[in-house]
């Protein structure tokens, strides 16, 4: 891969310049030098904690040692005990959190995708005031999730504006299905515009001629959408959906603030793990974190299979799109 073309730094006055994008001798060394700080930091802040979590998940909590009756200072090794627990007594809370996480991910990402695509189609048509619209749809993205949790908690207050508009007296932020609804509404508000933005970027690179050809063949708008727009925008959409899924699976701030910690109806895996850790039960907390990690990993893997390519590669056409959407 890295054949030598010219010595590094040597002035190449004679002859044709170095071939574009090709490696020079020492490029590998320079790359190693440039990339290693990042890799080192990520090793320290991601890889090391992950390995620690794996190890920690095999240990129990400090407490009474059943053999001696004394309080032990060290955490007993329990092997896969923490993992086995999810099928035992403590399992109910875990499975509830697991299904909440899955439910939130499926429902919010589904709604976001539909609303986001609709928004992108609307925005794609608009010619004037595009800057205003773009700034507007960036606002929900820029509002910190924690603040949007408070904001929606206020909207969903028993005397709040949601009930006033609906003419209802629903206690949204108490336990129950309506608490789930509140979380979903707030989450979709924050992220649907973002999907819209990414889909819009995908829409804007579809050549006009394709539609003209379709129109001449007599395809009506609905057909055009299903047979042209959707297939062509699919790669952008799939990446957007993948990122949203990863994000929804680790949902924490919104249900934590909107409804509260340790609420059965909305507790997610992230909330459960954080709650266990803050109660110094690091073993089970780590086990839950590891399970969440594996869950996220499996979903990501499924997506990569679906996409057929790796997400990181630099496909030649991909580079300029950001620019075009900005124009």
């Amino acid at each position, binding site marked *: 891969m890295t054949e030598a073309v010219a010595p590094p730094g040597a002035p190449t006055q004679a002859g044709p310049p170095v071939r574009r994008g090709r490696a020079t001798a020492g490029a590998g060394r320079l*790359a190693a030098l*440039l990339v290693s700080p990042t890799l080192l*930091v*990520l090793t320290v*802040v991601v890889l090391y904690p*992950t390995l620690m979590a794996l190890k920690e998940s095999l240990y129990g909590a400090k407490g009474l040692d059943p053999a001696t009756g004394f309080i032990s200072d060290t955490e007993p090794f329990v092997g896969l005990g923490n993992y086995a627990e999810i099928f035992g007594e403590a399992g109910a809370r875990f499975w509830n959190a697991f299904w909440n996480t899955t439910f939130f991910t499926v429902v919010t990402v589904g709604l976001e995708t539909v609303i986001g695509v609709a928004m992108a189609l609307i925005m794609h048509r608009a010619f004037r005031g595009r800057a205003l619209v773009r700034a507007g749809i960036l606002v929900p993205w820029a*509002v910190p999730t924690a603040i949007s949790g408070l904001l929606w908690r206020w909207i969903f207050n028993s005397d709040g504006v949601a009930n006033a508009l609906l003419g209802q007296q629903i206690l949204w932020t108490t336990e129950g299905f309506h608490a789930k609804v509140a979380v979903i509404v707030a989450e979709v508000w924050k992220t649907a515009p973002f999907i819209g933005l990414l889909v819009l970027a995908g829409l804007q690179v579809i050549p006009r001629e394709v539609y003209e050809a379709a129109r001449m063949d007599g395809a009506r708008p609905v057909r055009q959408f299903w047979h042209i727009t959707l297939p062509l925008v699919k790669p952008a959409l799939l990446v957007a959906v993948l*990122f949203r899924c990863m994000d929804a699976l680790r949902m924490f701030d919104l249900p*934590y603030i909107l409804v509260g910690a340790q609420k059965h109806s909305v507790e997610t895996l992230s909330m459960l793990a*954080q709650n266990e850790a803050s109660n110094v039960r690091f073993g089970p907390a780590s086990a839950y974190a590891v399970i969440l990690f594996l869950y996220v990993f499996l979903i990501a893997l499924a997506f990569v299979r679906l996409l057929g390519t790796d997400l990181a590669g630099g496909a030649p056409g991909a580079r300029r799109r950001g620019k075009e959407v900005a124009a």
Partner: protein
Amino acid sequence: MTRTVEWRRWLSYAGIAAVVAYCLAPFYWMLVSSLRRTSDIFDTSLVPSPLSFENYRAVFDPVQGFGRALLNSLFVAGITTVLALVLATFTAYAMARLEFRGKRLILTLIIATSMFPVVSIVVPLLKLFTDIGWINTYQSMIVPSMSFALPLAVWNLTTFFRQMPDELEHAAMVDGCTRGQAFRKVIVPLAAPGIFTTAIITFIAAWNEFLIALSMTNKPGMQTATVAISKFTGATTYETPFGSQMAAGVLVTVPLVVMVLLFQRRIVAGLTAGAAK
């Protein structure tokens, strides 16, 4: 024919209005509520009357310690952004410009970390930081924040560097610069807009962080703004101080909204460059 065109144009304007209203209405409600008096906080009129800054005064009551929380947020997010940018600039340059073995794998790994559930690193780090006495320190918030800030910055900068023509640095090298000099004197200045955009996006992500800051602090004086607001207490135990929460929410969000308004074109470019593939 012209009538349908006219009709369609109005329909698309109505659609745009609906999209903007959907995005802005809740934010507007936060703004309006923050400007009401405590006594008419449950009012549902669209404009607050009388206008009152009572909630803003309450936020800056020294009891809440909100000023300190804002400074904490600024410091943690600022340092995180600077560190991430410095490291990411080098890495992104290598990713965009150099050919070397394992490049794709490395880039994939870096991006994969950005999808990592934060709680999986918070739990073990919480234990570690408890053991070494780092709880309630800035580094206990900055270090874990690098886990999402750094991949985000690398990803953004890589796409920016790729957009710049290769000829620039070749020309510099022909003129006698080494690769390092070409990078420092030609690429970095030209990439400044990209670096700036990446800085904004990274800063917003770090500023919005909640889980790490919540877990790593228990002293009010060390909490960041997002955590502090969520813990505001009212005059009585059973009352949620919605007015001051909304006012504080506005204060935390407005800097970001201003950035978004000023640099929306660049931010959109930065956000979509990588994803819209």
